[in-house]
């Protein structure tokens, strides 16, 4: 273990500890609301990143989130299933759909796959807004999605999801589970294989890698977590409308990954965090929000082409040098 690892671990543990005690520092529902959106965006960005590690870009990530959101909400509202079953079911639903769509379309590369996912996303939104209105609720969507059912954990009083605080902790737990799972995957043999596909799929094929299998695997895993995020979204924010999951939302998720830093695991997490907070700050300026956002994006792309994460890495190096100088 060198010092770089220490610094990194320190920052990560510090961040997690900070996130854990936030509800003690501020009980303002608005703050918690923003943080929940931030956590959701982290799940979405890091799961899209999994798909990007095999060299594919998807503009259907919000659509898979929509599939999760509607699945979960409908299972609870129409069939009376508990949230704790509906949530994994929504992830599985999104994963099955991804498996089917991915097996057909992942043969396509680059812009072609991007356009197919774009079209798929639009189709999903169209179906939710125009078909089976009695089920999906049309353009106005589903209203009154119930919060998660209360759970009993030994030794602490029953947890009821009536205020923002328990919902925040739910979002935080799901985010940590997602991030840890994907971290494990990235550091396993599979992570290496995924990366190999991005670098050169002909070479990968020639050493015996079934490239379709691993592309579909990455796509399915990524979409599974998008589905989970959808479920969390639906039950945290009560209302689910098709427009929430439009193509724009997919583009935003993609921006989180790219601006954060595509080549690093922490990049998408950082990107989602910084940009969510940034757009929250800009919200005060109304119409100027998207202008400010656009300018910020251009500046990042110009001056930090490998993402905000590269800035963080530079700062860490500087801090270490400073420490050394103090010691010396």
């Amino acid at each position, binding site marked *: 273990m060198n010092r770089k690892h220490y610094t990194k671990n320190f920052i990560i543990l510090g961040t997690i500890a900070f996130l854990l005690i936030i509800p003690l520092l501020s009980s303002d529902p608005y703050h918690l609301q923003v943080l929940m959106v931030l956590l959701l965006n982290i799940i979405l960005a890091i799961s899209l990143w999994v798909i990007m590690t095999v060299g594919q870009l998807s503009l259907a990530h919000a659509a898979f989130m929509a599939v999760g959101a509607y699945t979960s909400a409908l299972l609870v509202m129409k069939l009376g299933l508990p949230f704790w079953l509906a949530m994994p079911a929504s992830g599985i639903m999104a994963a099955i759909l991804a498996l089917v769509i991915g097996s057909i379309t992942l043969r396509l590369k680059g812009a072609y796959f991007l356009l197919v996912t774009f079209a798929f996303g639009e189709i999903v939104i169209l179906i939710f807004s125009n078909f089976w209105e009695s089920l999906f609720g049309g353009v106005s969507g589903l209203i009154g999605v119930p919060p998660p059912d209360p759970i009993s954990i030994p030794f602490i009083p029953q947890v009821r999801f009536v205020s923002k605080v328990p919902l925040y902790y739910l979002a935080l737990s799901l985010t940590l589970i997602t991030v840890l*799972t994907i971290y*494990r*995957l990235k550091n*396993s*043999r*599979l992570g*290496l*294989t995924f*990366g*190999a596909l991005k*670098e*050169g799929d*002909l*070479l*990968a*094929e*020639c*050493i*015996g*890698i*079934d*490239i379709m299998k691993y592309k579909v*695997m990455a796509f399915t895993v990524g979409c599974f977590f998008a589905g989970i995020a959808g479920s969390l979204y639906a039950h945290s924010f009560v209302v689910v409308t098709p427009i929430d999951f439009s193509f724009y939302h997919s583009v935003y998720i993609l921006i989180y990954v790219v601006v954060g830093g595509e*080549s690093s695991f922490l990049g998408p997490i950082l990107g989602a965090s910084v940009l969510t907070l940034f757009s929250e700050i800009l919200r005060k300026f109304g119409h100027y929000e998207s202008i400010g956002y656009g300018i910020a994006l251009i500046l990042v792309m110009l001056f930090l082409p490998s993402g905000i994460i590269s800035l963080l890495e530079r700062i860490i190096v500087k801090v270490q040098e400073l420490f050394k100088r103090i010691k010396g």
Partner: protein
Amino acid sequence: MNLLELKNITKQFGGLTAINNLSFEINEGEILGLIGPNGAGKTTAFNMISGVLTPTKGKIYFKGEDVTKLKTNIIAQRGICRTFQLTTLFKSYSVFDNVLIGCHLSAKTGFWGNLLNTSGVRKGEGKTQEKTEEILKFLGIEEIRNELAKNLPHGYQRILGIAIALAAGPELLLLDEPMTGMNNTETNDMIETIRKIRAKGTTILLVEHDMKAVMTLSDRIIVLNNGVKIVEGLPAEVKDNNAVIEAYLGREQDFT
């Protein structure tokens, strides 16, 4: 015994016939040289054997089994691996990781096993790492193990390309112009390396423009011209063959 057999292979791209009725065999343990002028169809033949292209007509047998229509990764699984004319590597990975990726076929790649990091997977990964070490040592590149592939000098990149192919554990190794862009010393090193690989029992099909290298290395040589096999024989026989000289230099014209 022949390891690989091409039977009446024809490949057409639209109206262009790249390979016309080509048949040849590769015997187990030999180094077979495949030469010919540019556009003769050497790389096309290579691509068909490795499954990147499918022949228009004809059959390819590997160890007696028909492998004509198998996909590239299945062919690799059966035991045929190739390198590329243009250096193709996992560029942003280290030398070690490149070879480690190459060990895919002997690695444990199950989804749940990897996610849960089971003891079986850890043991398997230990084995692939050992295998990677062995290959690095065998090719003499263990000192550059932590360098990124894209930062390597050309000669090392070519060797790394071979290392990746060897990691897949092939019985038949297809080398597509391994000496391209090398100076004399590097070429001689490469010749030694190829000999070493053969000594370990790997059969080799070699496409190469460097005549000296092909002549010293090959047990037999096949000469292609315009997609047709014009000569097959020992290096000494091929060297002095009139048809070969004609193919490379053109026919002597009588202007009188």
